[in-house]
């Protein structure tokens, strides 16, 4: 097991790098998993500032309503401060109740009641606008029905307070959602950390002079390759266990079968990433090029496959490209497991199957390349 031992020693030498990578990536995953408020049905917490320029009973009624429903923030009424607050999202939306609001409302006019400031389009803004429009049109409707303004306001407030009931049909609790969110970032961590650890180590082991020397020794090439393989397996498993361990440490051990499937999913991705690392190491030995590939592949795949931006936000053409990356299938499965998309046995099997196919395909390509590359020295790939 000389080769294996040497492999581990080289890994140990390069461990610092790998640990720095793993640590940074895991902290990225943990930070994001905690900060996610991807809100679809849960009430969105909107930070709101209202400038009441009308200052009438009617406008105060609305302000009161808004402050019950949303979180009010004080902002100085000058453009610079507003921009700063909006920019740093200390406030999501600034609403101005325009002068003449009460008269317009009484007259049944809806146009020009409010103004808003905002920096960029956001979900909060859409909800706000929708709410104000509903409010205005409802009040108008009541006044048209001859309801006195004061009562119309009261009715409107009541009507708007009723929330539509939404059932998550067949929503199986996948388990702790943070857990899946953590696993959502796994592909990025795994592929980046593996490429940046395994490629340099493999390159050292494959260095031409070392390779020649081992070829001259009595170690059979197949044995050599096998020992390298075992070395990779040990290192990769250790790193993976570390990642799973950190997940378990923060979010608890996997308790539901879905959580266990998420763990299994990440293991399949570990196999893919290992194969990719070996492939990249066979292609180039330039550190800089490896870094380029690591970053481009890690970030690119993450954007295309829905790791950083959720899959349902991505356009169909992007997803079409994403399908050619293994992470797409990983994320699809993870989304099913967490319950944000439907889980069915066939679909899950498909995701696993395609990932497995990726492993086979990458390994085949790697073997071919290595055969061509080392042909002159008759090295078993």
């Amino acid at each position, binding site marked *: 097991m000389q080769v294996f031992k040497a492999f581990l020693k080289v890994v140990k030498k390069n461990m610092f*790098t790998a640990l720095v990578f793993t640590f940074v990536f895991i*902290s*990225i995953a943990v*930070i*994001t998993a905690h*900060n996610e408020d991807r809100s*679809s049905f849960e009430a969105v917490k909107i930070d709101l500032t209202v400038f009441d320029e009308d200052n009438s009973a009617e406008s105060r009624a609305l302000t009161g309503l808004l402050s019950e429903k949303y979180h009010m923030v004080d902002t100085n009424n000058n453009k610079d401060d*507003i921009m700063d607050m909006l920019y*740093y*999202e*200390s406030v999501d939306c600034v609403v101005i109740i325009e002068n003449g609001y009460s008269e317009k409302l009484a007259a049944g006019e*809806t146009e*020009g*009641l*409010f103004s*808003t400031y*905002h*920096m*960029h*389009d*956001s979900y909060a803004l859409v909800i*706000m*606008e*929708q709410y104000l*429009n509903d409010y205005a*049109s*409802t009040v*108008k*409707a*009541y006044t048209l*029905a001859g*309801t006195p303004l004061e009562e119309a306001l009261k*009715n409107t407030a009541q*009507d708007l307070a*009723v929330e*539509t*009931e939404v*059932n*998550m*049909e*067949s929503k199986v609790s996948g388990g702790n959602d943070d857990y899946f969110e953590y696993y959502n970032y796994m592909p990025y961590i795994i592929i980046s950390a593996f490429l*940046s650890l395994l490629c*340099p180590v493999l390159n050292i082991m494959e260095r031409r002079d070392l390779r020649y020397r081992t070829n001259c020794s009595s170690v059979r090439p197949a044995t050599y390759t096998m020992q390298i393989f075992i070395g990779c397996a040990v290192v990769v498993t250790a790193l993976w266990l570390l990642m799973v361990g950190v997940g378990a440490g923060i979010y608890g051990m996997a308790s539901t079968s879905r959580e266990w499937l998420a763990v299994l999913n990440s293991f399949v991705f570990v196999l893919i990433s290992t194969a990719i690392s070996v492939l990249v190491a066979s292609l180039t030995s330039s550190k800089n*090029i490896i*870094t*380029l590939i690591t*970053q*481009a592949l890690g*970030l*690119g795949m*993450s*954007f295309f496959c829905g790791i950083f*931006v959720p899959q349902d*936000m*991505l*356009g*169909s*053409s992007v997803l079409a490209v994403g399908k050619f990356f293994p992470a797409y299938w990983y994320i699809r499965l993870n989304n099913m497991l967490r319950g944000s*998309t*439907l889980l069915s046995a066939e679909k899950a099997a498909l995701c696993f199957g395609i990932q497995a196919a990726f492993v086979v395909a990458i390994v085949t390509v790697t073997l071919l390349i290595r055969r061509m590359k080392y042909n002159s020295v008759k090295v078993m790939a």
Partner: protein
Amino acid sequence: MFLHNLKYEFLTAVRTKDLLIWMILFPIILGGFFKFAFDGIYEKTTQFSTLKTAVVDEADDKNFRSVAESLSAQEKPLLDIVYTDRDNAKKLLNDGDVKGIIYTGKELSLSVAENGIDQTTLKFFVDKYNLRSRVISRAAQSDPQSIEKVAAALSEETDSVREIPLTEGNTDNAIQYFYNLLAMVAMFGSMTGLHISNVNQANLSALGARKNCSPTPKGTGICAALIATYIIEILCMLLSVTYLRFVLGVDFGDKLPLVYLSAALSGTVGVSMGFFIGSICCLSENAKTSISITGSLLLCFLSGLMISDMKQVMARKLPWFNKINPAAVISDSFYCLNMYSDYRRFTEKIVTMFILSVVFALLGFIMTRRKKYASL
């Protein structure tokens, strides 16, 4: 002496091909990826598609049916409705054939199986419908004659909100990703800064030892290396901006020359940072490389490269950090240029970059100042 050094520093830098390739290819590849990915997002969020929905009309709600009919008559209908029974609806939902089930009754209720934009759109629809029916029924109680007027008022397109633009710049959120991409390219410039101390320190390389034996003062050699690296990195940054602006068509607002200025300065920040990391004496070259890569990634992450609202989260939790995080300062400088019409914030960012650059370089100089080594 200095020019001689500069000339050769330049030559070596230009001939370190793989590093140069990666400095240039990286923004091109990722920029292309981003462009492709975010154009896709735009397409998805602005054009909604028709949603297949099951309706379980047990209450035989005529009102709903008429509304639904009028909806379907539109050119690009919001809903594609299938009337069915409870069990079948659930089956359809679970098979993924419909996006949601609407149950009629006193009020509409909604069942969905997933969490996503389509489902949110469905909820908006049901909300609106319920509100409408509530108002109409209440109005009917007080004045049955007014129902038509009321209904008309409720169906009218209401536009009570006027948006006051705060900026003349490009308000597309996706541009943030390109700002951060530029910040990342600048931060990765630290990789080129690393080598400066490497080839000038006697304890790091044989070349460094040889240089230390020459009568050229160490400061001169390092200065020349630093300046040559600045120039190369600045060129890379300018190239990146040009590529993003003119090849990918990313809209940086109307102050393009200042965008170039900002990009150039950000290049020096990255190089100085790398020079600083390279000067840390007790670490191996590999360790330094990994620190500069992961450090850059972490800083970029915290400035929102991967998750766009990360910067806002940081602004809330660690406001001071955003002000000194080089990646955040760089991306903010582009942002300020685009968003604000006055130059106060932009100037602030530019000054911060300049200070960061100088401080990193000075720290590097201080740490490499040592002329004798305890061991080689």
